[in-house]
């Protein structure tokens, strides 16, 4: 119990206090300088906007989260298979890797309209943008995990006349698990960004919108307090996704990292 208390005092309380200070300064700034609410609404207005639109915000967050999660899972599966292919053939890896890097370097915002054009509006378009933006970190990290194997372990498997498939299944894939989680952590955050960007262009329908669409909508109507609420929920969504992956990784990687059982 004491451990939790000291953990709370040292690592939870300070950022909370800083947050409270920041909100206070924000509030004082808005009041003192008499800033127009459509430019910068104070924290109270934002809180009211959250309360007024809570069901819509929650629904939008869920929808965006679902799009991000789908994009992330697809990119994880596809990225894993591509990395597996890369690890098995140097020729394929050399020929295709530059195109994988293209995924990383091309601004997704620039190609998102094109993707929507091809894939179509609605959920599938959002998932496609999220998928493309989160694919590269999975490919890069998993490939590196599958190929940087302790040479002694490869010799050990050779001494036991292990087949190529046995080396993949019993050595390469388990060795790559920590690197896969590193990629997943990066991609999980990106998948949320991808879903929001996708929604900027795709949306879902007139009555059905995620956070990205809501941002465009509230911005257009100069409902800046509502816009702030949307941004807050985007941040919380990204945080939730990243935290779940981190916790899952810490939980599953105990053996790889040499912790207690």
């Amino acid at each position, binding site marked *: 119990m004491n451990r939790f208390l000291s953990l709370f005092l040292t690592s939870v309380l300070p950022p909370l206090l800083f947050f409270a200070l920041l909100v206070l300064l924000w509030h004082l700034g808005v009041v003192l300088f008499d800033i127009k609410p459509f430019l910068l609404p104070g924290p109270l207005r934002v809180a009211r906007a959250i309360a007024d639109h809570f069901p819509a915000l929650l629904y939008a967050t869920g929808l965006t989260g679902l799009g991000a999660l789908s994009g992330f899972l697809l990119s994880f599966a596809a990225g894993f298979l591509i990395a597996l292919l890369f690890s098995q053939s140097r020729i394929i890896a050399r020929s295709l890797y530059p195109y994988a890097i293209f995924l990383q370097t091309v601004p997704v915002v620039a190609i998102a309209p094109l993707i929507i054009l091809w894939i179509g509006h609605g959920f599938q378009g959002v998932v496609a943008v999220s998928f493309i933006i989160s694919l590269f970190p999975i490919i890069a990290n998993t490939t590196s995990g599958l190929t940087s194997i302790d040479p*002694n372990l490869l010799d050990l498997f050779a*001494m036991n006349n292990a087949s190529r498939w046995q080396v993949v299944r019993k050595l390469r894939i388990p060795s790559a698990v920590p690197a896969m989680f590193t990629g997943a952590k990066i991609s999980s955050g990106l998948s949320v960004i991808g879903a929001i960007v996708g929604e900027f262009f795709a949306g879902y329908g007139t009555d059905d919108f995620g956070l990205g669409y809501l941002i465009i909508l509230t911005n257009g109507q100069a409902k800046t307090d509502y816009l702030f609420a949307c941004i807050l929920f985007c941040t919380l969504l990204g945080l939730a996704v990243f935290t779940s992956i981190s916790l899952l990784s810490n939980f599953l990687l105990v*053996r790889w990292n040499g912790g207690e059982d």
Partner: protein
Amino acid sequence: MTPLENQPSPLVVARRLGKRFANDIEALLGVDLDIPGGEFVSIVGPSGCGKSTLLRLIAGLIPLSSGDLTVDQLPPVEARRQRQELAYVFQEATLLPWRTVAGNVLLPLELRNQRDPAFVDQILELVGLADFARAYPSQLSGGMRMRVSIARALVTRPDLLLLDEPFGALDEITRQRLNEELLRLWEEERWTGIFVTHNVYEAVFLSQRVLVMSPRPGRLIADIAVPFAHPRDPDLRTAPEFNRIAAEVSHQLLSSHIS
């Protein structure tokens, strides 16, 4: 058939064996070697003399550059593929961190599509790790990890066990204890052992024969018999005759170093 051919030929035979790496480093040159089945031989030499290279050639892990090398009258790679009775213990324990001790020891059997958990337990008992079967490598000391590594080699019931400086990273007390355990294991099973080390006392204590290698390019420059009977007692280390042989091995090592 001449009578000579009826004699069992040595398990490992090398003639004028040479190894040159792609970067033009001449690791071994003109190595002649005969190791009869059931013998425990140590190879000592200065660091970087090609001891490990010789072991990896015998294991069939790297191709030779010149000369001949056979294991049980077959090229090493063939011997490894056909007989499957070759095991290698590396300088580091080289365990899979995601597997328990028992899982690590079971691995060679798994790769052969054999499952024999009872035998795994028996081997773990033999190396004194029965209570740690469910522990993970990260929970073990360096000496215990090396025991797991040896157990993993023994689980295949090898004819030929190649040991590449397995105790080099351990402290002196642990090293001596593991030397005694390895000796006991050999005395019980009598597999053929080739043990690479740069520790003279370890080599003399364990072996029936100590081969001394020159600095690179490695050649065998001395072949010193260690005629003590088995089972050997740990107190052997303090016997005058033991120290005389160790002194001779050291002398050969140093003479090669100066020249």
